[in-house]
């Protein structure tokens, strides 16, 4: 790869949109050094940060020397003396500063490069004694680095403006903290179209391209980047012309989206007046304002596990109660559907063995097949105290508004019975404790496993509502790993089997007169929305920022038309043909 000039890399398109900004290499491990391009106006600050670190390290050493003078050997004093000299070596002082100014890279990155260069040079020395001197240099460098470290602990929620995050992989707990107004785009090596990080990136509207060799990019001198999330392109050091083209494109996107949001607070009605209710999915309770702003009918899916994933600790009953209470209060009568903790499987975080909640996961250990493993309701039944606390918090908060409970990954009807029994016990306990409990709390089942889809009539009978989780349902029906790049092309959200299964679920629910809400990204695809309405779905839950688009799409159709569209679609037997049909007939 050339070191200069525009380069175009092709990756896998994950989340649409145009991102323009400067690169930030986000380290996966704490040991790794971050590589950041410093904006011209902040370069002086960066130099000052280094000078400060040098000064602190020097004071440190002088202090050590003073202590040693009283009670240490001449050897140690001499070593400290040498270290002080190394610290004041022009190659460490002006050498590093000159390089910061020249390359506009962060201190850690420069420092790391320089030390690596010395390692190479010292390694070439034959004489063992001289060769070993590198240890002193490394020692000094670590002291200095420990004082520049603070920037390394940078959190994804505190990135500078126009950051483009480059990482080997993004974990959901980090992605959920990302602020779309600061982060222009994500680029990763690993991670597929349907990983949780991908879903969140799309929900937040952060452009994302995966399957890009980050290590390769680390070797290039990066000035600026453009990420085209729709095409899956990463443009390195774009020319002025390319930059202009993408800036214009971005402006156009923003203008279009603004136009859609102006009508977001109106109902989603078909031309002939059928109302479809659009709810919002939510991960971060702080983002509840978006729900109102984009005209949601309520929260159709609160992914409560993010309370755990973002803090790496299960929230206490009291903490949960406060969160749910604030949420329902702010919803002012609109419903809040809390999906109980859907953890385990691919929704794990690396917990340090010392952390309080680590034993929950350690006891399960490594699973050869996490998607089919101890996750969601299975995990909660294994640790009923977690579920009980969560149900208690929900029941207590239900005095302040309308809360529904949603059970993830139901695969047998006995599981909802078990949850109902536990819920009844929790209510009884709370009543004994003196809480006044008003209404019953509706309990719904997530239909996302083939067995529950097949047994949907029985499950619908015993549930208050059903929720179709399309992301998982598609993965399990097609037996395609959502995050495996080698099978990603087999993951067809438009597979005919998916349409048939949705039709089946809608029919079963209708028989027991239970509402069905469809969650998942399928709903936000403008070529899919009409079909889904045609299949009988009357409630959707999508990321808040997609609501304006979904509403806009629904308003373009008549009910009769979408039913015909769905009927037509059900006649196709191959996913490719169905996809083509949808692209020609389903988009207006």
């Amino acid at each position, binding site marked *: 790869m050339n070191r200069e000039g525009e380069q175009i890399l092709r990756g896998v398109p994950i989340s649409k949109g145009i991102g323009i900004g400067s690169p930030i290499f986000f380290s996966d491990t704490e040991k790794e050094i971050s590589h950041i391009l410093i904006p011209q106006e902040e370069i002086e600050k960066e130099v000052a940060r280094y000078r400060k670190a040098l000064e602190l390290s020097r004071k440190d050493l002088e202090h050590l020397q003073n202590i040693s003078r009283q009670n240490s050997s001449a050897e140690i004093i001499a070593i400290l003396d040498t270290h002080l*000299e*190394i610290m004041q070596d*022009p190659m460490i002082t002006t050498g590093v500063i000159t390089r910061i100014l020249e390359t506009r890279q962060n201190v850690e990155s420069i420092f790391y490069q320089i030390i690596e260069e010395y390692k190479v040079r010292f390694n070439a020395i034959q004489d063992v*004694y001289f060769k070993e001197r590198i240890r002193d240099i490394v020692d000094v460098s670590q002291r200095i680095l420990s004082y520049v470290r603070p920037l390394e602990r940078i959190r994804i929620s505190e990135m500078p403006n126009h950051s483009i995050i480059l990482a080997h992989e993004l974990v959901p707990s980090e992605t959920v903290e990302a602020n779309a107004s600061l982060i222009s785009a994500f680029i990763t090596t690993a991670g597929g179209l349907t990983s949780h990080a991908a879903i969140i990136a799309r929900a937040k509207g952060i452009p994302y391209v995966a399957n890009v060799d980050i290590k390769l990019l680390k070797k290039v001198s990066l000035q600026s980047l453009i990420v085209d999330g729709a095409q899956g392109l990463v443009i390195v050091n774009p020319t002025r012309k390319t930059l202009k083209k993408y800036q214009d494109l971005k402006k156009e996107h923003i203008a279009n989206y603004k136009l859609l949001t102006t009508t977001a607070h109106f109902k989603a009605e078909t031309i002939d007046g059928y109302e479809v209710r659009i709810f919002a999915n939510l991960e971060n309770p702080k983002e509840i304002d978006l729900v109102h702003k984009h005209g949601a009918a309520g929260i159709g899916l609160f992914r409560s596990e993010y309370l755990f994933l973002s803090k790496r600790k299960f929230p206490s009953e009291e903490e949960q109660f406060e969160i749910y209470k604030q949420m329902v209060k702010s919803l002012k009568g609109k419903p809040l559907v809390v999906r109980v903790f859907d953890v385990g499987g691919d929704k794990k975080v690396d917990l340090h063995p010392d952390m309080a909640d680590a034993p929950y996961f350690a006891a399960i250990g490594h699973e050869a097949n996490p998607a089919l493993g101890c996750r969601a309701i299975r995990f909660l039944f294994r640790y009923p105290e977690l579920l009980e606390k969560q149900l208690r918090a929900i029941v207590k908060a239900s005095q302040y508004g309308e809360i529904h409970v949603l059970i993830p990954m139901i695969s047998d009807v006995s599981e909802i019975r078990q949850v109902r029994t536990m819920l009844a016990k929790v209510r009884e306990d709370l009543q004994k404790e003196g809480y006044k409990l008003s209404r019953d709390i509706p309990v719904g089942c997530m239909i996302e496993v083939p067995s529950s889809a097949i047994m949907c009539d029985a499950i619908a009978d015993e549930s208050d509502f059903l929720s179709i989780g399309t992301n998982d349902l598609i993965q399990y029906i097609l037996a395609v790993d959502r995050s495996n790049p080698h099978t990603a092309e087999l993951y067809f959200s438009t597979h005919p089997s998916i349409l048939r299964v949705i039709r089946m679920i809608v029919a079963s629910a209708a028989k027991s007169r239970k509402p069905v809400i469809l969650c998942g990204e399928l709903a936000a695809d403008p070529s899919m929305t009409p079909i889904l309405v045609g299949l009988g779905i009357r409630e959707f839950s999508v990321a808040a920022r997609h609501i304006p688009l979904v509403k806009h799409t629904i308003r373009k159709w008549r009910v009769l038309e979408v039913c015909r569209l769905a009927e037509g679609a059900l006649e196709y037997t191959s996913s490719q043909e169905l996809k083509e049909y949808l692209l020609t007939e389903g988009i207006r």
Partner: protein
Amino acid sequence: MKVASKVKVKNALGLHTRPAAFIVKLLQPRKSMVTFTYKSETINARSIMSILMLAAKKNAQILITVDGEDAEATMAYLISAFEQEFGEK
């Protein structure tokens, strides 16, 4: 003014950390630019790391070049330091 002179490393361990630190300290109050040349490599004698990287052992021949207003005095100090084996004798 610019002066140059060849010196021999006499101390047993060569230009290791302590002599290197000694040289850097000695040069701190001096104003001239000082370079050492050894085995076709020329380095800034105010940099302890650069001196170490020369890996100059006992009996190595170093070419000292001093350029500046106090060149002669600086050179005299340096030659004496090499002669005295940097106080290790």
